[in-house]
């Protein structure tokens, strides 16, 4: 565990030092942003749609007879922004993005492609790690923002169609306890999730050993460790910022 954290710290430090090789990483950044961000939109939206529906229905089930129904908007808005939007998107992307990075870099390691990069004088961290980490830091908040909007939207449509609520009622609940800091909080979480998912994916991919079996093992470890890191970070931000 301590050795793993040490290696992660070492890779992170090397990633920061690699920023100076702008000519190497800059031309790969857009490509990675598309791969990590745009390609993740369908899964993030899919999860957000159903999360919004369930939140709306569960809020109504809990509040009926005890709390005014417009509180459905409070619960959907706050929960999507503060918790489920960033965390569910982060977990989904740790599976999609983290696994993809670990498998790709792991395959490159065992087939000597990373060695080949080095022999051609390409700094491998600047070429392979930095564009992925930057793309994760930039695109996780964008995808999360979209997921939050879609989740709130699907919760609103559910409230209109299945709970006999009106739009003004739902919006009243949505804005009742809204704080601009909620948005900042969601972005801080999403940015940190983007950082850990990409760095952990790169770490396990980079240190892959032993052919196809090694690639499979690295991929699984990347997903498990980055999912755990997301949950730990989630609690950390709640304790320190709320």
């Amino acid at each position: 565990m301590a050795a793993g954290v040490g290696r992660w710290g070492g890779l992170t430090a090397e990633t920061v030092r690699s920023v100076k090789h702008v000519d190497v990483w800059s031309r790969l950044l857009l490509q990675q942003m598309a791969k990590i961000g745009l390609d993740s939109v369908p899964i993030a939206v899919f999860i957000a749609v159903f999360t919004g529906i369930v939140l709306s229905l569960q809020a109504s089930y809990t509040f009926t007879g005890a709390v005014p129904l417009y509180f459905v908007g409070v619960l959907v808005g706050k929960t999507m922004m503060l918790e489920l939007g960033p965390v569910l998107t982060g977990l989904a992307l740790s599976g999609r993005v983290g696994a993809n990075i670990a498998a790709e870099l792991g395959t490159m390691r065992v087939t000597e492609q990373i060695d080949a990069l080095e022999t051609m004088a390409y700094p491998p961290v600047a070429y392979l790690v930095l564009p992925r980490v930057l793309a994760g830091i930039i695109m996780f908040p964008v995808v999360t923002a979209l997921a939050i909007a879609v989740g709130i939207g699907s919760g609103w449509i559910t409230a209109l169609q299945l709970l006999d609520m009106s739009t003004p009622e739902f919006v009243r609940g949505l804005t009742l306890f809204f704080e601009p800091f909620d948005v900042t909080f969601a972005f801080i979480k999403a940015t940190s999730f983007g950082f850990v998912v990409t760095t952990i994916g790169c770490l396990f991919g980079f240190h892959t050993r032993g052919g196809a079996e090694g690639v499979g093992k690295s991929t699984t470890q990347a997903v498990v460790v980055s999912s755990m890191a997301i949950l730990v970070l989630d609690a950390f931000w709640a304790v320190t910022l709320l």
Partner: protein
Amino acid sequence: MSIRLEGVYKAFGEVRVLEGFSLEVEEGETLVVLGRSGSGKSVMLKHIVGLLIPDRGGVWVDGRHVSELSTEELYLLRREVGYVFQFAALFDSMSVSENVGMGLQRLERVSRGEIRDRVEECLELVGLEGFGDRLPAELSGGQKKRAGIARAIATRPKYLLYDEPTTGLDPITKAVIDRLILRMSRELGVTGVVITHDMESAYKVADRIAMLHMGQRRFLGTPEEIRATEDPVVKGFIEGRPELLENAS
């Protein structure tokens, strides 16, 4: 000396691969390194470009102590070296042309037009003209290997390190690669280190032949000298007679 390995020790955990291996490669010569599978030939080659650092001993290229170079100095050294990997190590997501042009993009003052021309020229040299737009997955094993060689020679390096360049190739392709190695050495003065099991190729391309056995250098001499050797380990290897090796050990 152009390339010098002196008393190199390298172990991976409990497995000791090199145990005081020494070798000198003269400028402009092609030196073939023989040895059984798993004897540490590829490990030795990786030390020359600093992909591996010796546990003990040292490696010098043009008088530069490889393991003591800064990162920037190491990259400068690597620009002078072309490395042909055993399994080609082509980048899966790039076309053959992009693979061959990768090293050129790191060189200063090489225009896009020059890169395109040099890529075409190198693909032609290895008999892969017209294959530039293909992905590595669309090539056969031999074609991948040839694309790997084209990538290594594209930067017109001072040193070429070949890790089993002809293993698994058909006789015609083998002959093409052997001629290319000879041409690199004779016409362009490139210093080459070739790892191979293929004795026919070794005799064709080598100025000198070394044999790596049990982590140390067992033999160093000309092709004529190795043919005449009475060392049972070397003789057993080059003649494919395992009984000689067994009796020797």
